[in-house]
């Protein structure tokens, strides 16, 4: 059985990404380029399978400008047997890559096609799934463990999914995409680098593979993510209460109720703490048992009665003075110089009795 591994040349993982001044894309001139880390993992897995005697040959393939040959050379130095470079422009979208891979699979007829789950430059995470669809092969994406059974011609794949692991049994031939924990890629050792020099890299074109490199997508603009705003120092408790009520967007907290309203599937909308009531915003930060008791205890310090308060906003209104006292006790070091801020119960109690 042959194994084909797709390899992408990307901006090195450790390089800080800079946007081109005309916003047409990411700056790649004079930038260190390396093999996509997930592709390294994919290749390592293929090599391991070959070393365990379950495969006869590992073929590394890459598509893009001529520099991709360097990355393929790295793949050969890691241990791939031969490589194919498909000459193509640098900006290929996942569908084009998937079509090229399909064409290559039809030429080489491998029993397994392994890819990285995504490339760290565009983070698309689409190519593996697309090529599986085009080939009509079963797919095991985000693989963290792969076990092959040569007799039965199946691969058992552990996948990292939200909330745990999923184990699939795939009939070969199949498409796998590698997740981070699948393995630890090997280094390119000198003897292997020397051997790699004599390994063949076959050059092909999209025309030879009868693939039309056309895309329905166009990059309009590439910009940096917005810079995180700096925090602000407030001058009074009134301002704080006002910000909490009007600007903090408390309603956007991802409580179970809110998630459910956004159409996210959940096992339950009940509060995971008390499992008695729906986890609304008000329940989470005010109504739920423990939390309520904490507010009650605070109100006790403030010498206030909050038994009639029904929700968080009401609490903010009613206890404005209490909040002011607490904050000034906690942070007003000038007035209460002796106070040690510690969130242990004893310390707070002692300081309260002192003042």
């Amino acid at each position, binding site marked *: 059985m042959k194994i084909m591994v797709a390899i992408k040349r990307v901006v*090195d*993982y*450790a*390089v800080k990404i800079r946007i081109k001044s005309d916003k047409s894309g990411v700056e790649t001139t*004079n930038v*260190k380029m*390396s*093999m996509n*880390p997930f592709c390294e993992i994919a290749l390592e897995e293929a090599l391991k399978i070959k070393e365990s005697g379950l495969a006869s040959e590992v073929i590394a393939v890459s598509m893009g400008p001529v520099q991709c040959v*360097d990355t393929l050379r*790295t793949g050969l*130095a*890691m241990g791939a047997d031969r490589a194919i470079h498909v000459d193509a422009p640098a900006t290929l979208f996942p569908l084009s890559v998937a079509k090229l891979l399909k064409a290559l699979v039809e030429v080489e007829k491998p029993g397994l096609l392994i890819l990285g789950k995504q490339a760290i430059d565009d983070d698309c995470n689409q190519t593996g799934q697309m090529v599986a669809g085009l080939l009509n092969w079963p797919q095991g994406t985000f693989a963290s463990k792969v076990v092959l059974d040569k007799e039965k011609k199946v691969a058992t794949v552990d996948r990292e999914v939200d909330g745990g692991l999923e184990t699939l049994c795939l009939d070969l031939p199949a498409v796998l995409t590698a997740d981070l924990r699948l393995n*630890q890629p090997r*280094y*390119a*050792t*000198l*003897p292997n*680098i*020397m051997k790699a020099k004599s390994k063949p890299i076959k050059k092909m074109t999209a025309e030879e593979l009868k693939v039309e490199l056309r895309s329905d997508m166009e990059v309009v603009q590439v910009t940096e993510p917005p810079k995180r705003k700096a925090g602000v120092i407030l001058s009074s408790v009134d301002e704080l209460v006002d910000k909490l009520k009007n600007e903090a967007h408390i309603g956007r907290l991802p409580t179970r109720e809110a998630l459910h309203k956004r159409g996210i599937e959940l096992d339950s909308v009940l509060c995971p703490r008390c499992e008695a009531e729906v986890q609304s915003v008000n329940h989470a930060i005010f109504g739920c048992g423990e939390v309520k008791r904490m507010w009650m205890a605070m109100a006790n310090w403030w010498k206030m009665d909050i038994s009639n308060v029904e929700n968080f906003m009401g609490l903010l209104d009613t206890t404005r003075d209490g909040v002011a006292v607490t904050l000034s006790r906690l942070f007003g070091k000038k007035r209460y110089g002796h106070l040690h801020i510690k969130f242990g119960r004893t310390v707070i109690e002692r300081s309260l009795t002192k003042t």
Partner: protein
Amino acid sequence: MHKYKGSSKLMLQPENTEELSQILKYCNSRCLAVVPQGGNTGLVGGSVPVFDEVIINTRRMNSIISFDKVSGVLVCEAGCILENLISFLDKQGFIMPLDLGAKGSCQIGGNVSTNAGGLRLVRYGSLHGTVLGLEVVLANGDVMDMLGTLRKDNTGYDLKHLFIGSEGSLGIITKVSILTPPKLSSVNIAFLACQDYISCQKLLFEAKRRLGEILSAFEFLDSRAMNLVLNHLDGVRNPLPSSIYNFYVLIETTGSNESSDKEKLEAFLVHAMESGLVSDGALAQDLNQASSFWHIREGIPEALMKAGAVYKYDLSLPVEKMYDLVEEMRIRLGAEANVVGYGHLGDGNLHLNVSTPQYDDAVRFVFLLHKSKNGPTVLLLIIIRTPQQILAQIEPFVYEWTSRHHGSISAEHGLGLMKAEKIYYSKSAGTVQLMASIKKLLDPSGILNPYKVIPQSLLS
């Protein structure tokens, strides 16, 4: 280090030269001893207050004053942390001419005053070459402006050199002007295994010839150092796990052309492999791998700390003799201690480290609760003094050996407190006498970093 315990009642953190000058003026007038302190990362106790010295810490003097993109001259205050300067220059497309393991906390003022060497010395030379100017505050508070930014300046005595490497005993450095080389885009790192020390030497010889202009680091470590790192540091992986080798060499090349540099390095490595100098090796394929190779070499001091007590020696020796000392030491100490050798082979600088489970020259306190039949319970304090066996085996042997082979007992760490009295192993009596005269001239009251660098007997 857990080796030196300082004792001081006061630490001052001046914000600028003026404040520092005022402090020294006052201290000098009252004969108060001071100890200048930067990142406090020194290994020979140079920044430790011995009795009651006032600590003057430069950490708040941390601004970058100017940077000239054409000449590459950086002017900054002494308290700038080396790593911050490295990242500042990185954005400008330049690098610092020195790089060392402690870069995250050491300060440039401390680097200059101790003439720190580090990992790039083989390429960019010592700070005596790259520092173009200094501003120094003398013991009496006078500010000496020698902050030139010129590469060539032959007017009179070049006094800045007195302060580079004087370990704060002649004045406190407040500003530094330093020549920074441009950052070259192509960096390649190879991690190689050699079977014996002769091969390491031959490899260095070959590397200087075949890699000449792009060679930027040539480091070596022995198998014991490698084992320490693998056993004591998390997430470190042996790049060459297939076999155990006696020596490992890390070669870094820095150049301007990725493909031609790589070709050159590969050709060199293939040649080294074919001629049997190198038994195995790995070439970093991306920056992540490169930094994990460096991590092995830079992580040795940390691994040694985790392994227990460590006696550190930083020696300059003729390259061909360097490892003989490690082997002789192993025979001397036998199984009692782990003798580790690593260092900057390219500069003839050996870091000889003796690692033992604990410091045996320490006083130990044992508390016992004694309960007599009818009387009260008594707390007994027993003081155990163990003989300084290991240390007596190492010193003065190491120093004598080094002296006999015309080496230096301090290559890049300085003399500090640890080796002040040992200066004669590397310098003649006349030279030390002249140093003492200079010290007396610049610091007549002897307030600056006392008990360090120069033997006490010459100053009192």
